[in-house]
């Protein structure tokens, strides 16, 4: 099985879906001839033609609007937002329209749109190329939200997202595009080659939406993470020598609550880790759910390890990023109670 980077895996998912389904079209800023600023759509226009993969004007809201219309027609548009930080102009069409069509039309109209957007920090992108904005969308009923952490999942989840008949917001941790990242910027960058989850079938397969993955078994504490933070959590567990169970949520909504609850009931302790700002982040929902469902099993408060409630500052990237030390510290606090 070939080793693929996350970029290649995502590219492969779109390539396959373009080939399988003539209703799939892909557009976004620079995705056509150039293949996207992160090269995720590289070669797709050349192979499938510019009627299927094309550049869009710089208007995230316009792209989403047009995608809603296309979806109502019967197409399956896949829209790339160049950075998650630039999704705000599209919020109205996403929240008021894509997410509500089916409900408000009594089930007559819907928009099977996939919105892809690179998210997260770790590349010195400064405050407008580093944001993690998932919590804005998990609050919206009618949207599904997905964040993969590795090439295998990325491809399988993206295929599921494109095939899904509901709108899906698909965030891609850009720091993982070319290799896993354990949160140690001082160490040399590691490629995906050799990583178990970089073995990606060339053909069609899917990873279901709404199912978490247990990425590390453990008995002492449960760590809930997604995207880049899965790797950071693994490093934190290893480095602190903790018997932590780590769950990669993969899909935030619908959430795999059963897997979470089973784990926390077992360990009695829970740490939630994400890059986004803390207040009102998805970690708040996770903490709320865990205490709702596992209260009598919890031996300590659920700990949140997150980005700070500040913009992502360019030169202070690593003071902002919730790296392995901070996660380990969170684990320690969860263990001590």
């Amino acid at each position, binding site marked *: 099985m070939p080793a693929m980077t996350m970029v290649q895996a995502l590219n492969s998912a779109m390539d396959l879906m373009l080939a399988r389904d003539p209703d799939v079209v892909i557009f976004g800023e620079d995705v056509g001839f150039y293949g996207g600023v992160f090269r995720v759509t590289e070669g797709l226009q050349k192979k499938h033609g510019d009627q299927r993969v094309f550049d869009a004007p710089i208007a995230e809201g316009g792209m989403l609007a047009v*995608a809603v*219309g296309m979806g109502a027609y019967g197409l399956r548009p896949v829209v790339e937002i160049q950075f998650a930080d630039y999704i705000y102009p599209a919020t109205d069409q996403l929240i008021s329209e894509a997410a509500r069509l089916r409900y408000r039309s*009594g*089930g007559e109209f819907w928009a099977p749109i996939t919105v892809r957007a690179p998210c997260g920090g770790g590349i010195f992108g400064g405050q407008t190329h580093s944001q993690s904005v998932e919590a804005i969308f998990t609050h919206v009923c009618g949207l599904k939200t997905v964040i993969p952490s590795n090439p295998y999942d990325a491809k399988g989840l993206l295929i599921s997202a494109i095939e899904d008949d509901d709108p899906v917001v698909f965030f891609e941790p850009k720091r993982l595009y070319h290799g896993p990242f354990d949160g140690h910027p001082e160490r040399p960058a590691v490629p995906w080659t050799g990583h178990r989850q970089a073995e990606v079938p060339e053909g069609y397969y899917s990873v279901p939406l709404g199912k978490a993955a247990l990425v590390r078994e453990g008995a002492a504490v449960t760590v809930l993470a997604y995207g880049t933070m899965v790797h950071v959590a693994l490093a934190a567990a290893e480095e602190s020598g903790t018997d932590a169970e780590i769950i990669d949520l993969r899909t935030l909504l619908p959430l795999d609550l059963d897997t979470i609850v089973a784990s926390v009931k077992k360990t009695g302790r829970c740490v939630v880790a994400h890059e986004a700002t803390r207040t009102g982040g998805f970690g708040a929902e996770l903490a709320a759910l865990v205490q709702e469902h596992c209260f009598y099993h919890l031996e300590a408060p659920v700990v949140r390890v997150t980005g700070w409630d500040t913009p992502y500052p360019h030169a202070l990237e690593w003071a902002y990023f919730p790296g392995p030390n901070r996660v380990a510290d969170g684990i320690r606090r969860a263990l001590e109670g």
Partner: protein
Amino acid sequence: MDTAIPVSEPSPPAASAAPDGGPPVLKLHIPAHHPAPDDPPDHSAVPRFPAGIVERPDIAVPAHVTHPLADKLIRALDDDGTAIGGWDPKLDPETLRRGLRAMMLTRAYDERMFRQQRQGKITFYMKCTGEEAIGVGQAFALAPDDMLFPTYRQQGLLIARGWPLLDMMCQCYSNPRDRLKGRQLPVLYSSKEASFFTISGNLGTQFPQAVGWAMASAYKGDRRIAAGWIGEGSTAEPDFHHALTFASVYRAPVILNVVNNQWAISSHQDIAGGEAATFAARAIGFGLACLRVDGNDFLAVYAATLWAAQRARANRGATLIELFTYRAAPHSTSDEPSRYRPEDEGLNWPYGDPIERLSRHLSVLGEWSAERQAQLDSEIVDEVREIGREAERHGTFDQGPHFSARTMFEDVFKEMPEHLRRQRQELGI
């Protein structure tokens, strides 16, 4: 030799100096609100365009040929009810009578439902009084499977397409025959069968969606085109800009209609930018074709729409149509127009009433009479009353019945996820 050129000091006078002896300080321009409720109605700022003088270009002309039309007004029916000029679509009397009937039905429907709100049987209503020629005339000019992306003020489209009034009423009552399951405010209809997109409560959003649908139709090599509507007030929203941009870039087969009914709730069209240019003129900067039409002239509305539809179907791209009309009704049942405009402003609208004008035209043609008009009047009143009673038998908003609360959790997603199932349980149903 001296190249040590200082960079810092710019040459023009400092900002504080007045140029050319002009006014010494800046002033903020706020468009005047006029006339006030107590003033006499004043339409002196509305230019009077005679009928029949605007030439009808071939549908194949480059877009810029239409740009001078942005400052004119296409009219086919003159004040006496005679059709003149190149924009007379020369419809047969049968079609004209059907048009008249659909417009009258629209008005009668509106009147009944407005009263239903006043009687507490529905929560809310919006009339399109004075604008009936738009929905009806445009529906007549489009193919029945062309896709419509309307606002809340184009009920005429549905009625002209023969969509059952019963269905529309039941939506307003949110009763068990409401196909939208009681989820939407009255008048926010949806009908896939009638190729009528689910109306949004958020202004403007449908406009670029129409462009996306049209792009999809073109992508599939289909023959159906799309049409979107937006109020002149809502052209200020980003969606308007997106629609024009994407329609221009991808030459989408779409008709983009701006209904300029002079008002956006209490704000005059000046506040939307109508003081400095017409809304049709917005097309120019995008290289789109544009037409500006007397929206109270059934013939002109029909002809302009047909022109744009043929152009779109011939892969010649989008047309922006400004339909110039007047919102004769209050904005909605929640509105109090007496607080912001003279009560009789509508009666004095220089372009008359669309129903009266078409009726007069039929008379001029010798295809109509006072008796036929009277008979049609009472026929329509009866029809609306009868359907109305039937609809009420299915339930009214105040009396019910309504959909069960169980249904509240359906259709959020295609399949109900676990957390919604749990919430439904929590509600105990």
